[in-house]
C-alpha cells in the first residue's frame, strides 16, 4: 500500500506517472524473453556442473552419452574451443568461470565441467544427467569465519583502496564518553532474478548474434568479442526484455557455452540455466563479518570511527563486497578508519548484488549508530543530525547536495516518530512486543559515458536509439518521458529502441547510474534535434538524426561527493516466545534528484525496501561444510519475503533539486534496500531490548537471544 506525492508540480512528461510502454506486451505474454524466442533448427545446451568442491577432472565419460537420443555434442575441457580470458574488460578482468572447459581444475562445487547439446532441452538434460564425470577430489575449505588464517588485504583491480585512515583512533576512543564496539554479520545472499539466465547464439551473415538476458548488451558483446578473439563489430548482443538482473546479469558461462556450441554445430544454440545452477554460476553477495567501533563525546558527536569488513571470494577471482565504504561518505570523525579484508575459499566468486557494499555495510553501521544513540541517551535521528559531515570524510570533496536531513524530517513526520519513548521492551499487544526503528541510507549518484541517436520522421514521430537495458525497471518508459520533454512533444510520438549493442555504447543498468546516464545522452541528442527542427524545413523520408556522446560532459563534471539519500523507518512486532518477527510498517523517504516516473520509481523503491525486509528476516544461502555445496539452492529452501510478510509499506521522496547538476536525476536503482535491515533490527531491539547483530533475524535466533537475556537477568544480583 502506498500513497501519492502531492507536493510536486509537474509540467512535462518527466515527473508524471506513466505506465510501462511495454506493459501490455508483458502481461499478455507477447513480450518474448531470451529463452523463448523461436528459431528454426534450434539446438539446446545443458550445462553439467561439478559435484566436488575442489579437485581435478580425471575423465569425462562422454562416449555413452553421445549415443543417447538427440545428442549432438558434448563439450568439455578436452575438446572445447580455446578462449582468451587474459583481457581487461569494461569492469575489470573477467571472472575465470566464463573461461569454461579450458582446464581440468575444479575450484568449487557447481563449476561448469561440460555442456551437452541436443535436439531438445529434455534430451540435453537427460544426457547431461547421465554424463559420468570422474574427479580426483582434494580437501576443500568453505568455512567463513572471523580470524580465518587466510584473510588478506585486497588490492587492485578488485579494490582501489581497501583501507582508509586518518587521525589517532586509539587515542580518540580512549577519550570518548561513549563507545560502541560490536560485530555484525550478514549471510550469503543470492539475486534470484525471476527470469533465469538464458542465451541463444547463432552465426548470421558472418556475425555472432546473441539473444540474451543481461544488464548491458555492449558490455556483454565486448566481453564475448575479447573472449573469442573476435572483431567487436562482428558481435551483436540483444536483450529486449529482462526479468530482473540485480547485478547478476553480465557475462556468465551460459552465453559462452551457447557461442561455443553454435560455432561448432553451425546452428542456433540456446542455453538456459536452472534455478539451482544459478546459485553457483552467476554470482551472489558474499557473507560479511563486520566490526564497527564508534566513539562519541558527551554531545553524541563522533570522535572515533572504525568500520572493518571481511568478505569472501573464490580461489580463481577476486571480488570485494565493499561494506566499509558506506562510512567513507556518511559520517566523519577526528579519527576515521575503514578497511576491507578478503578470504579465498573453495566457493564460487561473489559479485555485485543490489547496492553492493551499502547493503550489508549499512546494516552494521546503522545498527551501531542506533546503539550509540542508546548509549548517548539521544534520539537516533538527533544523533545522526549532529553528525552530518561538511565535506566528504575521506575524499575531502564538497557534497553536491546532501539532503539527508529533509528525509529524516519528512520521514519522522509521516511515521509519527515524535514523542517516541526510546526505552526498549515496553510496548505489548497480546503476544507481540512492539518497537520502532530507523536508519539512514545513501548511495552514490554517478554517470557512465553513453551515446544516443534521435531521429525525426516525416510523420511527426521520433525514434530514440539508446542502448539502455530495461531490466524491469521501466527504462524504456523513462526514456520516452525524457525525450518527449527535450523535444517538447507529447510522449505518444516517441518510440524507444534499446537493448541492442548495434545501437552503440551506453552505460549498463548498474550502479544506479542507468537512468542518469541514458537520460543525459538522450537529452543532448534530442536538444540538438529540436534546435535543428526549429530552423524549419521539411523532414526528408529517411528522417533527420542527431547523435550524442556524453563522454566529454561527464569528464568535465566538477569533482564532488554526489549521492542520493534516504531515511528508513520500521515498526516491528516480536513474539519472544516463538521467535516470530513481523514488520508492521515500513516507510522510506528519499532524496534522489528528479524522479522521472513516480509510478515506476515507487515500484523500484518499494521493491528495494521489500528486499531489505527479506534480508533482515529471511534470506540466507546455506553451505554444507562436508560437501562444499548448498543445501537450499532453490526458492523453497532459500526464503524471500512472501506477501504476508509485507504489511504496510510506503515509499516517497522529498524535492531534491540541484541547479548545478546538468542532469538532475540521481538514480534510485539501489538506495531502496539500503538501511532497511538496520531499521528493522533497531525496531526489534526497541521491541524486545535485545540487539540482533546477525542476519537474518530468524525465529531460532530470536528465541536463543531471548533465552540468553532471560538467563542474564536471572543471574544479575538483586538490586543491581
Amino acid at each position, binding site marked *: 500500500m502506498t500513497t501519492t506525492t502531492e507536493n510536486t508540480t509537474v509540467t512535462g512528461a518527466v515527473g508524471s506517472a506513466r505506465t510501462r510502454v511495454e506493459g501490455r506486451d508483458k502481461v499478455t505474454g507477447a513480450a518474448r524473453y531470451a529463452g523463448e524466442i523461436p528459431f528454426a533448427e534450434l539446438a539446446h545446451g545443458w550445462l553439467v556442473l561439478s559435484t566436488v568442491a575442489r579437485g581435478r577432472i580425471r575423465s569425462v565419460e562422454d562416449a555413452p552419452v553421445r549415443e543417447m537420443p538427440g545428442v549432438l555434442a558434448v563439450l568439455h575441457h578436452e575438446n572445447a574451443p580455446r578462449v582468451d580470458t587474459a583481457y581487461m574488460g569494461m569492469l575489470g578482468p573477467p571472472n575465470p568461470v566464463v573461461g569454461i572447459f579450458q582446464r581440468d581444475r575444479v575450484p568449487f562445487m557447481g563449476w561448469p565441467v561440460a555442456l551437452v547439446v541436443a535436439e531438445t532441452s529434455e534430451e540435453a538434460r*537427460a544426457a547431461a544427467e547421465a554424463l559420468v564425470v570422474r574427479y580426483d577430489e582434494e580437501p576443500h575449505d568453505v568455512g567463513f569465519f572471523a580470524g580465518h588464517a587466510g584473510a588478506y588485504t585486497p588490492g587492485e583491480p578488485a579494490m582501489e583502496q581497501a583501507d582508509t585512515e586518518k587521525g589517532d583512533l586509539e587515542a580518540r576512543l580512549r577519550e570518548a564518553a561513549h563507545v560502541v564496539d560490536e560485530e555484525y554479520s550478514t549471510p550469503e545472499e543470492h539475486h534470484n532474478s525471476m527470469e533465469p539466465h538464458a542465451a541463444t547464439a547463432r552465426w548470421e551473415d558472418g556475425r555472432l548474434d546473441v539473444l540474451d538476458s543481461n544488464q548491458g548488451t555492449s558490455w556483454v558483446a565486448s566481453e564475448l568479442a575479447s573472449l573469442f578473439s573476435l572483431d567487436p563489430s562482428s558481435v551483436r548482443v540483444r536483450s529486449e526484455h529482462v526479468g530482473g538482473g540485480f547485478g547478476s546479469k553480465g557475462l556468465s558461462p551460459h552465453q559462452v557455452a551457447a557461442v561455443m556450441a553454435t560455432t561448432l554445430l553451425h546452428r542456433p544454440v540456446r542455453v538456459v540455466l536452472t534455478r539451482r545452477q544459478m546459485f553457483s554460476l552467476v554470482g551472489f553477495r558474499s557473507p560479511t563479518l563486520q566490526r564497527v567501533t564508534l566513539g562519541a563525546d558527551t554531545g553524541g558527536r563522533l570522535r572515533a570511527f572504525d568500520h572493518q569488513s571481511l568478505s569472501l571470494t573464490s580461489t580463481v577471482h577476486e571480488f570485494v563486497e565493499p561494506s566499509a565504504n558506506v562510512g567513507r561518505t556518511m559520517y566523519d570523525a577526528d579519527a576515521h578508519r575503514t578497511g576491507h579484508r578478503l578470504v579465498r575459499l573453495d566457493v564460487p566468486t561473489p559479485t555485485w548484488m543490489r547496492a553492493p557494499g551499502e547493503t550489508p555495510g549499512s546494516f552494521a553501521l546503522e545498527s551501531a549508530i542506533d546503539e550509540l544513540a542508546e548509549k548517548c541517551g539521544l534520539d537516533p535521528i538527533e544523533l545522526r543530525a549532529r553528525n552530518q559531515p561538511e565535506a566528504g570524510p575521506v575524499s575531502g570533496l564538497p557534497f553536491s547536495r546532501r539532503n539527508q536531513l529533509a528525509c529524516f524530517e519528512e520521514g519522522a513526520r509521516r511515521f509519527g516518530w515524535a514523542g517516541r519513548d526510546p526505552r526498549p521492551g515496553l510496548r505489548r499487544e497480546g503476544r507481540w512486543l512492539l518497537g520502532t526503528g530507523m536508519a539512514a541510507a545513501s548511495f552514490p549518484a554517478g554517470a557512465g559515458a553513453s551515446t544516443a541517436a534521435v531521429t525525426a520522421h516525416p510523420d511527426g514521430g521520433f525514434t530514440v536509439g539508446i542502448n539502455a537495458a530495461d531490466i524491469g525497471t521501466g527504462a524504456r518508459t523513462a526514456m520516452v518521458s525524457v525525450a518527449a520533454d527535450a523535444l517538447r512533444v507529447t510522449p505518444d510520438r516517441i518510440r524507444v529502441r534499446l537493448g541492442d549493442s548495434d545501437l552503440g555504447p551506453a552505460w549498463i543498468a548498474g550502479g544506479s547510474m542507468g537512468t542518469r546516464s541514458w537520460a543525459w545522452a538522450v537529452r543532448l541528442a534530442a536538444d540538438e534535434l529540436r534546435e535543428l527542427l526549429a530552423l524549419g524545413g521539411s523532414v526528408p523520408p529517411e528522417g533527420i538524426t542527431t547523435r550524442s556522446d556524453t563522454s566529454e560532459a561527464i569528464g568535465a563534471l566538477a569533482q564532488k561527493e554526489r549521492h542520493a539519500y534516504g531515511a528508513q523507518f520500521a515498526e516491528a512486532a516480536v513474539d519472544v*516466545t*516463538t521467535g516470530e518477527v513481523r514488520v508492521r510498517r515500513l516507510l522510506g523517504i528519499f532524496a534522489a534528484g528528479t524522479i522521472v516516473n513516480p509510478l515506476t520509481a515507487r515500484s523500484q523503491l518499494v521493491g528495494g525496501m521489500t528486499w531489505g525486509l527479506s534480508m533482515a528476516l529471511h534470506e540466507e544461502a546455506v553451505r554444507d561444510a562436508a560437501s562444499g555445496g548448498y*543445501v537450499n539452492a532453490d526458492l*523453497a*529452501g532459500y526464503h524471500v519475503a*512472501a506477501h504476508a510478510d509485507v504489511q504496510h509499506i510506503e515509499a516517497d521522496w522529498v524535492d531534491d533539486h540541484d541547479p548545478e547538476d546538468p542532469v538532475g536525476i540521481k538514480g534510485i536503482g539501489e538506495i531502496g534496500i539500503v538501511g532497511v535491515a538496520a531499521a528493522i533490527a533497531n525496531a526489534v531491539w526497541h521491541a524486545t531490548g535485545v540487539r540482533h547483530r546477525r542476519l537474518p533475524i530468524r*525465529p531460532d535466533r530470536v*528465541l536463543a537471544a531471548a533465552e540468553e537475556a532471560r538467563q542474564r537477568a536471572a543471574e544479575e544480583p538483586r538490586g543491581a
Partner: protein
Amino acid sequence: MREFGYERALDVSGAVALLAEDPGARPLGGGTNLVDLMKTGVERPTLLVDVQELPLGDIAFTPDGGLRVGATVTNSDLAAHAEVRRHYPALAQAVLAGASGQLRNMATVGGNLLQRTRCGYFGDISKPCNKRTPGSGCPARAGEHHNHAILGASEHCVATHPSDMAVALAAFDAVISYETSDGPGESAVADFYLPVGETPHLETALPPGALITGVTVPPAAVAARSRYRKVRERASFAFAIGSVAAALDVQDGVVREARLALGAVASRPWRARTAERALTGGPADAEAFAAAADAELAAAEPLADNGYKVTLMRNLVTAVLTELAEEAAR
C-alpha cells in the same frame, strides 16, 4: 528424456490395478510435491496414475457423527468446509496454514499425507541421504539441521514430516483408509508413519500398490474446541519449524480431556500422549501446561543447532493450551 507413462484412472479398482501392475507407478493427485520431485530427479516414477477424477472428492458425515474426507478433496475445499470448521477447527486451520493459496487449490488430502520431507539433503540428488538412497549416509546430523527432528529420530535420519494437516488429524485420532488389489485396509494416522530406526526410506504403513481413498475423523466433542498454531520462518508459504494441534475440554478449572499433537519435530506428526496424560485431571493453568510440555519433551534429543525447538515447543504448547483454557472460561 526421462520418460514415464500417464494413465487417468476412472474408478478406484482401475487405479489400484494400475498401481499393482507396476512397482514404479505412483498415484498423481495435485502433483504439488511429486512433480517437483520428478523435476529434481528425487522421484522417478515409470507410471503416473492420475487419481483426480476418482469419485473420492466428497466430505460427508459418518453415521456416528464423524467426518469422512475423500482422498481427492483439495486442501482448499477441506479448509473451507463449514462442518470441518465448526467441528474440527484445528484441522481447517492446519490446512490453511500450509503452502499457498495456489498450492492448496491443487493439493489433495491423499497427497498431503504422502508428501515427502523437505530436508535439503533429501531434495538434492548430488548429496547422500539414507531416505532417498538407503545406506548412503545422513549429512544432516553434522551439517544443516536447524529445522530437523528432535523427537523419534535416529542416527540414520533426522528429517521431519512436512504436513500440517496430518498433525491435526493425529490429534483427532483420524484413520486413513486405502484400497489394494487384495481389498481395503486402514491405519490410524498415529500408526501410519513408521518409526525411523534403520529404515528411513520406509515411510508409511501403506502396502505396496495401495491407494489412499480417504480419511475418517471420528466424532469428538473436544475437537470443536481446538486450535492449530504454526511457527515458520516467514509469515506464509513456508514449512513449520514447530506447530501444535490442541483441543481442550475444561470444566471448573480442571482439564477433562486434552488432545495434543506436535508438528515439525519428528518424522511423523507427533501425538503427545505423555503430555495428554499429564494434563488430564489437572488444573487448566499455564504452569500445568508447561509441565505437560516438559514431560513430553523430556524425550527430545536435539542436535547442535535445533535445540531451540525444545523451548519453542514448550512455549507454543503452553500458549495454545492457555488460549483454549481462557476461551473455555469465557
